[in-house]
């Protein structure tokens, strides 16, 4: 579904990604794990077009999207929940969700998906007129996720959804990811909390200083000695 080959990204003189290749197949949950600064977020930013690659190829559903603009990539069915949630805090919950459907024109479909999001996150329905900035961290994560779902993506990329959340909410967030996947959306997940990420993923890639150093099924990596020592503690 998503195929990344030989990706190289630079920030000024800093070589942020070295020949990164990976793929995500239809229906999977794939996770990228690694230390802070290893380049996980950069990968997501490059795939969704916020950052340009120096070389390499990104294809999504057999279309080359390497140089496609960020606002066009979304229309191909690829949605991105950014790190730190980045909801529009001066807009209401409902306006935020509608922003997610900005690129769509089918009014009925939007209404239907809005209803679906509200079904999935009843808390958002309760607060649909509230300004997003006044929501708690957990609610904002739900809103950011719901907003991304409003574009009816076939692949959902999530960046550190558990960051800064209390243990009880972390559990909840991963449950949500699993259920989104169960309803047919492929998920590419970037997580600091490697243990949690591996527990719900099918496959995983391990990043170190901009390179993919290990890949395999989540199960295998969970029992890999190096991974255990470095990321599972």
């Amino acid at each position: 579904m998503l195929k990344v080959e030989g990706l190289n990204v630079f920030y000024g003189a800093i070589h942020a990604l070295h020949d990164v290749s990976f793929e995500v197949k239809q229906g999977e949950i794939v996770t990228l794990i690694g230390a802070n600064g290893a380049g996980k977020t950069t990968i997501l930013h490059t795939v969704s077009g916020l950052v340009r690659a120096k070389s390499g190829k990104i294809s999504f559903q057999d279309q080359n999207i390497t140089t496609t603009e960020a606002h066009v990539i979304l229309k191909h069915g690829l949605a991105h929940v950014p790190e730190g949630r980045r909801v529009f805090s001066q807009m209401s919950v409902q306006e935020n969700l509608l922003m997610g459907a900005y690129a769509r024109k089918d009014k009925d479909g939007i209404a239907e998906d809005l209803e679906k999001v509200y079904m999935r996150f009843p808390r958002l329905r309760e607060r649909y007129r509230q300004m997003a900035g006044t929501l708690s961290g957990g609610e904002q994560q739900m809103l950011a996720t719901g907003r991304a779902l409003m574009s009816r993506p076939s692949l959902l990329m999530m960046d550190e959804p558990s960051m800064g959340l209390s243990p009880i909410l972390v559990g909840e967030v991963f449950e949500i990811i699993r259920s989104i996947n169960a309803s047919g959306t492929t998920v590419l997940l970037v997580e600091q909390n490697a243990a949690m990420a591996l527990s719900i993923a099918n496959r995983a890639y391990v990043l170190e200083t901009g390179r993919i150093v290990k890949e395999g099924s989540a199960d295998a990596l969970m029992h890999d000695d190096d991974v255990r020592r470095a990321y599972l503690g």
Partner: protein
Amino acid sequence: MVKRRGLSSLINLICILLLFVVMRSAAVSSVSLNTLFIQIGYSIIMATSLNLACGYLGELPLGHAGFMSVGAYTAAVLTTKFLPQSAAVYPFALVCGGLMAALFAFIIGVPALRLKGDYLAIVTLGFGEIIRVLINTVFAPLTDGGKGLFGIPTYATFTDTFIVTVLCVAALYMIVRSRHGRATIAIRENDIAAESSGVHVANYKVKMFVISAFFAGIAGGIYAHQLGVLTAAKFDFNRSIDYLVMVVFGGMGSLTGSIFAGTALTVVQYLMASLVEYRQLAYALLLIIMMIFRPKGIFGRWEFSMTRLLARVFPALNVEPKNAEALQNDVILPDTPQYEVPANTPVLRTSHLGIRFGGLQAADNVEISLGAGEIVGLIGPNGAGKTTVFNMLTGVYQPTDGDIRLLGRSIVGMKPYAITEAGIARTFQNIRLFKSMTVIENIEVAFQTRMHYTLVDSLLRTKRFRRAERGARKRALEILSVFGMEDLADQSADSLPYGMQRRLEICRALAASPKVLLLDEPAAGMNPTETHELMETIRVIRDRFGVTILLIEHDMKLVMGICERIYVLNYGSVIAEGTPEQIRSNPEVITAYLGKNNPVNDGVGGATC
């Protein structure tokens, strides 16, 4: 690098003298060159002084010409109307002009510098406009109002302008390269972190703004005594912009840049004096193109050093001082305060602590007490008010109810820098380092309240200044060595990897020699290995520096692993307090925060989820 101070000063002195001799012979031969050189002189003073407020302090004053006009009129009115007709009074008049400009800057700066960024810009713009109106109306009996002040004695000569310019630039350089300059740059980099490192931010902003205006006033005096005529209209917004352009063009935060741009742009204007329109168009386009291709300005923050240049050509100049070792011990170390812990009193204790934002009760009746040398955790769901409690403890927020006692003394109402001085230091959830400064400078900033040499010491580079600076470096290296970071001392802070940045923030907090250390999510963004190392580090800090530690953290392995006691916060109130075991089994905490069958309880992360 040339480490011998005397040699370096000698080289600079020789270069300046050479420059003087060359320029003077040119100025003597041509009246127009003489005029040009004087213009260059005051332009350089204007640009470098504006750079202090703009490039170093990080504010955007748009009324620098206003201060220039105050200095110009003060000096000119004095020499024209009050003082005897003699060039001997000229220096006195210049200083008076500078002082008057400084006074105006103080009056406008005290209220205005509370504002941030663009708003300060607008207020200074407004000041620049108002001062012109005042000169023409209220002060008209002295300034002769709209018709202009005529007959000002033309005292300004090449020689005295050259000397004054060199003195002004040297003074600015000395200020920038001292603890005062460090504090100023720290404010630019991150004012909140600067304040919590013990820098009295409001005070420093006003101080630097006033100094900047003082030099603008001097430049104004030179201007007046070159031209012989003054009209308020000359000091309009466009003139302020001209100097701002010089600063940005040369590089904000580079005195070299301001000197270069002050010279170059003045020369360009001089050469094109006859082609007014095309000159201006070229000037405008140059500005646009320059900014698009080099937004940092020509020099960025780089400084030219003649000594460094010569040392590269003649490596023989690279000599260590003869008495290097003796100097290592001839230091004044930053103070280490002796905290007296009254018997039977907690180090830190809050009672009925609460805060209300508008109608929202963010924290209510929070009672926390920390014993000497304890490591205590503060946990709770997002939005429970944990960071709010930290912000009250450090004076960032003023509590609306209750009391905070540090070593038995109430610290409510004290400003953050004063609380740091009193003995509480902190780190931040989202790292707040002084990014463009080096690792060691980051730490040295935090010695601010523990060092005592004055602005005059730094201007004159007194022995006290040198000993204290060596002491600061020595102590900073000691702190870094505890964390094995001494080799990174001269790297810039933002080049450090994430984990190191978190550590540096802890080093900086420790540099303030606190009694209580507050850590806000120190493990955020760390992987289990790093977290594990961090746990060790925290224990070492407690033992080595004798501090009491209160930490906020979501990583339950860390919290449960090192905290001796834990407070749980929910909706702004403490719902539980106890040892890790008690907290882990507290039903209320499980429902509000930990969750049932949580990984915390089996210790391996989310495998069970």
